[in-house]
């Protein structure tokens, strides 16, 4: 892709960074205030990707502050791979949701599969064993051949990855609406279980400690995937895309077992661990250094590579899957190497922690990057985004309840809606029972999935819920309803709601109306989270969900986990006998 790299001056003159998503204002700010010189090609690429919305949350961060994220049970809130909640008996539950909307629109099987792979790494990098997967899928109307292709491939991709990993998919949701045509929403959530003592963080501290790379080799997959996910999605990008990320669940299974063995048996060798997710090596390494307030220096020649002739830029931005970055105590590198080699995984020391707060990369014996760590992670220019209530809402009739003449026919019509009809044909292709702990799986009679906690009486109920139509009619109430529906589903299984994770699926935030919707939805969700004492412990923002200029409905997805104190006492949601009495409780 890049044979001859532009010089810093050429970059300044020709502005290739605009295409990578960096604005002129940001570029100038970086030159004048952060590094006091012109960035070279590699550095410019690193800034572009780290300053993208996907990595920096520069647009959504001010709104995310509205969410409550602490309470007496929360052990880890947002900011790490996943959030953690105490469930007693020295155990904790770990969970997070992640969107893979844009990759799935382009290559639905691999997009969905690698979405699952990514969320699982977030869970096991915290030291937890994943015990369940959930998903939230929103497609266009089913009467379209391309939509049917997307559905089949996305569902096959989720199953293909999760089944192979041996993690049961126990709940989820699938809806169909025209607004998602061409821009399906593919959100995956994973729940893990751990002993509190095993909690890990992604940090690189202690001068001289080693940065180790483990897992799959680096290829040119998904270069600029992170900025790609952060710019408007139109057909033009489809052809620009360099290489699709391909998942290897077999390698990830080995990686998971190796990482869990390291964490659970040899925590003393380890300083920190982080998944290489979006923006791969650059985001994991600079975030690990930033969180520990240290510097890091790495030699890119040592990075295991699948393709020849990769540039520093490509190595750093590659989104090859099934890779982890470790910070290992000096002196234990041979032990760690031995452990990973037992699982047939690549493992190499690629750098070390420094004390000078600089981010330094060498490639082919040249220094290709030397910038402050904080310039990539903390100094991102915050943007104030204008917002405005959408036109459509000012004219909304107060009372637009549909008139129903023939309730029986309406009921039949409703039941025929794909969104309401049974999803069995899809969910049967997911292994929902591996790990032999599924008390309730995906089934029309289950409002939430339940996994029992072996060795205790406890169970964990979990659900994903979102409804773009409510969000469209009233984003604030839509946000409230998403949390409320999740809570109702968990409570219906006899569980006490603990906390939530979310995926905020919205359109282009530069559109003031979309930004308003985002703001309102978050405010509504936050209100309900406070009310229910279910803080937001992790989550993900997916913006620019548009197809040829038309935004999707505001679709915040809520993933909730609840604790069941005695799993023997859960009830099913269906009517089990003739002459059972039906009650309506509440308003």
């Amino acid at each position: 892709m890049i044979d001859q790299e532009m010089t810093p001056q050429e970059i300044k003159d020709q502005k290739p960074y605009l295409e990578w998503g960096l604005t002129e204002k940001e570029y100038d700010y970086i030159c004048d205030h952060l590094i006091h010189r012109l960035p070279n090609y590699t550095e410019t690429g690193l800034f572009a990707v780290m300053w993208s919305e996907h990595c920096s949350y520069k647009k959504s961060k001010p709104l995310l502050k509205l969410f409550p994220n602490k309470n007496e049970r929360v052990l880890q809130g947002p900011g790490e791979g996943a959030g953690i909640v105490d469930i007693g008996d020295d155990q904790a539950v770990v969970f997070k949701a992640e969107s893979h909307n844009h990759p799935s629109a382009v290559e639905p099987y691999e997009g969905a599969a690698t979405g699952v792979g990514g969320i699982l790494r977030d869970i096991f990098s915290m030291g937890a064993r994943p015990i369940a997967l959930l998903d939230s899928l929103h497609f266009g109307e089913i009467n379209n051949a391309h939509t049917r292709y997307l559905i089949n491939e996305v569902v096959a991709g989720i199953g293909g990855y999760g089944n192979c990993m041996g993690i049961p998919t126990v709940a989820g949701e699938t809806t169909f609406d025209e607004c998602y045509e061409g821009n399906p929403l593919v959100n995956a959530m994973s729940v893990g279980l751990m002993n509190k003592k095993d909690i890990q963080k992604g940090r690189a501290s202690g001068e001289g400690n080693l940065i180790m790379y483990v897992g799959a080799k680096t290829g040119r997959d998904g270069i600029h995937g992170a900025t790609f996910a952060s710019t408007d999605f139109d057909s033009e990008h489809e052809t620009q895309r360099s290489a699709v990320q391909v998942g290897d669940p077999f390698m990830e299974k080995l990686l998971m077992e190796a990482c869990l063995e390291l964490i659970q048996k040899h925590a003393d060798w380890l300083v920190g661990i982080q998944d290489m997710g979006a923006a791969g090596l650059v985001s994991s390494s600079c975030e690990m250094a930033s969180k520990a307030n240290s510097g890091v220096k790495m030699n890119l020649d040592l990075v295991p590579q699948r393709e020849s002739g990769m540039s520093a830029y490509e190595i750093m931005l590659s989104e090859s899957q099934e890779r982890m970055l470790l910070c290992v105590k000096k002196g234990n590198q041979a032990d760690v190497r031995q452990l990973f080699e037992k699982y047939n995984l690549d493992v190499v020391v690629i750098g070390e922690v420094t004390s000078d707060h600089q981010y330094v990369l060498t490639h082919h014996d040249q220094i290709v990057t030397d910038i402050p760590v904080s310039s990539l992670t903390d100094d991102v220019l915050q943007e104030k985004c204008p917002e405005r209530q959408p036109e459509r809402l000012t004219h909304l009739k107060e009372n637009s309840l549909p008139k129903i003449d023939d309730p029986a026919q309406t009921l039949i019509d409703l039941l025929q809606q794909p969104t309401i009809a049974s999803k069995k044909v899809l969910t049967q292709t997911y292994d929902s029972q591996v790990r032999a702990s599924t008390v309730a799986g995906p089934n029309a009679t289950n409002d939430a999935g339940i996994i029992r906690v072996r060795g205790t009486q406890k169970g964990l109920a979990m659900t994903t819920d979102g409804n773009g139509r409510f969000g469209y009619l009233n984003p604030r109430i839509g946000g409230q309803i998403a949390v409320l529906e999740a809570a109702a589903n968990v409570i219906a299984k006899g569980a006490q709601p603990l906390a939530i994770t979310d995926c905020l699926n919205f359109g282009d935030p530069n559109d003031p109306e979309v930004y308003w919707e985002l703001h309102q939805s978050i405010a509504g969700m936050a209100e309900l989270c406070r009310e229910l004492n279910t803080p937001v412990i992790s989550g993900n923002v997916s913006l620019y969900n548009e197809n040829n200029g038309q935004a999707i409905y505001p679709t915040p997805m809520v993933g909730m986990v609840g604790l069941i104190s005695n799993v023997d006492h859960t009830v099913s949601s269906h009517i089990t006998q003739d002459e059972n009495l039906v009650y309506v409780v509440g308003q």
Partner: protein
Amino acid sequence: MKKFRVYVTYKPSVFDPQGDTITDAAKDLGYQSIQAIHVGKFFDIEVDDSKGTAAQTVEELAEKLLVNFNLEVYRYEQLGGD
């Protein structure tokens, strides 16, 4: 009737975990001389050619149904026929 064979392979830049795993397995079996194994698939297609458009049909079919251009490339040839 004509017969065609369509060969589909991964693009060289695309990660092929299947091929890599099989290569490793071959080496583990003691076949150290094996350098690389790549997996591909092929489709043998019998087409009625009374309109003389069989080759074009095969191409269209490959592009619409048999090949995923995000990941794969293809090539086809005519086999013997009557």
